């Protein structure tokens, strides 16, 4: 019960903090809308207007990933700057549990991106919002956002030791968009990148979301999203413990 309370209060607090940040407004609403518009025009000029919902969903997922990524990178860095990282590390609950609600709130904020691109596509470009399996769509979106939040937790743990976490955030935005095939098929990429794609929750997430929206098998990709999310949670408990111990031993926890 105490764990649930901790997660809920942390989730609410971070959600409020993110709600006042213009940077997150940019990442979760403005940037996805701009990328969606670029993708719409590119698909239109290529004569692939039938794929506009495909572009809308992909651009939305790009926003979910960006918000999770910058949130996870920033989570450790901002706490470092504000001097609260040590307090979190010294608190009785495991560090994973302290940062889990933050990561979930980051990913939840990313859902604004999906809403923004779908509404933008519908209002400005007339993209029909007809979903083939609406309930499965909601389920797939929720599971994907949750899995991305947990993936963000693994990333955040590695940022404990790395002083330039925001640089890694800047670097990792496009590669995950590419390897996950969010707006184009991964068949365009070299064959050696396939295993990387398979290990990424957004790869299966966008498949599940796309199949739920446009038609196709949802449960297989959805199962893999859940499995990879659970794997991320397990991995993050190990990595948080390892990196926290290393940072304590080197006395580098609060170094900026």
């Amino acid at each position, binding site marked *: 019960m105490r764990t649930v309370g901790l997660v809920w209060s942390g989730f609410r607090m971070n959600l409020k903090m993110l709600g006042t940040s213009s940077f997150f407004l940019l990442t979760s609403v403005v940037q996805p809308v701009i990328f969606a518009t670029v993708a719409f025009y590119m698909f239109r000029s290529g004569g692939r207007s039938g794929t506009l919902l495909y572009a809308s969903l992909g651009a939305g997922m790009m926003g979910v990933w960006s918000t999770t990524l910058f949130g996870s990178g920033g989570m450790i860095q901002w706490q470092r700057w504000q001097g609260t990282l040590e307090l979190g590390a010294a608190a009785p609950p495991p560090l994973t549990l302290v940062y889990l609600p933050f990561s979930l709130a980051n990913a939840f904020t990313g859902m604004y991106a999906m809403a923004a691109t779908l509404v933008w596509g519908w209002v400005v470009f007339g993209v029909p919002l007809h979903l083939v399996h609406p309930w499965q769509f909601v389920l797939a979106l929720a599971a994907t956002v949750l899995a991305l939040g947990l993936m963000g937790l693994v990333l955040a743990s590695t940022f404990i030791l790395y002083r330039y976490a925001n640089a890694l955030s800047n670097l990792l935005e496009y590669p995950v968009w590419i390897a996950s095939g969010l*707006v*184009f098929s991964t068949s365009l990429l070299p064959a050696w990148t396939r295993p990387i794609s398979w290990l990424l929750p957004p790869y299966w997430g966008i498949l599940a979301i796309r199949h739920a929206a446009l038609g196709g098998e949802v449960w297989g990709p959805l199962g893999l999203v859940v499995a990879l999310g659970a794997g991320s949670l397990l991995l993050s408990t190990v990595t948080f413990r390892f990196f926290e111990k290393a940072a304590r031993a080197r006395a580098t926890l609060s170094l900026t």
Partner: protein
Amino acid sequence: MRRFWSTFFVGGLIAYRGLFNWIRPAMYVPTMLGSPLFQLIFFTKLGQYAHAEARDFYIVGNSVQVCAMSSVYGMTMAVANERWFGTLGPLLASPANRAAVFLGRGVPVLANGLLVSTFTFLVGVLLLGFRPGLDAVPALALVVLVTVTSCTAFGMLLGSIGLRAKDFFFAANLAYFLMLLFCGVNIPLSVLPGWMNAVGRCLPLTHGIEAARDVAAGASLGDVAGLVGTELGVAAAYAAAGFALFRVLERESRRSAVLDAY
């Protein structure tokens, strides 16, 4: 005159070293080289998937546009970070020539923008099969130089806004992403609605990218002289507007005593 140039070059370099947050290799390599590399691959593959334009369209467009990583963010930091680091007051209390202080900051930013664009073109050559032809390279280099200059001048204007605006990074980020949409980087201007086309023509990059594409396709420098001249005009207009705004905001900040205030 000697003092002017000393403030222009030495002052500009010192300001860049002190105020550009991403100068350390651990920040520079992932942000200024890694991000443009993957941006290029992303849009080239997206274009390929959408069957929109030929591969070189995206390679040239993005290789030129990524100079904004330096021009927009670098220039914004080089001016607006003075306030963030609390050094704006002492700087503006000094008798240094304002034009030298302001414009000198653009030189390292411009050099860095050229480096980022050159790197991205090389990635295009090595990974994506971009082959502009050796005789096109000098003209392409000149077009890129002019385009980076105009983009740096645009960064000066944004940096000046940062002297007073609370969240200057929001403006810099927004400008960077809007350039992807309005400047014909990945979408031909003819595909955009009229008003977007008109906005794009008032921004830096647009004419430069068009000229670079023509040169890469075999046009001579004379063929694109009009586009290059327009890009230079855009650069002069933004540099003048940036400097004028810098002076106005300086005066206003002194008058209302909000120089270092947030």
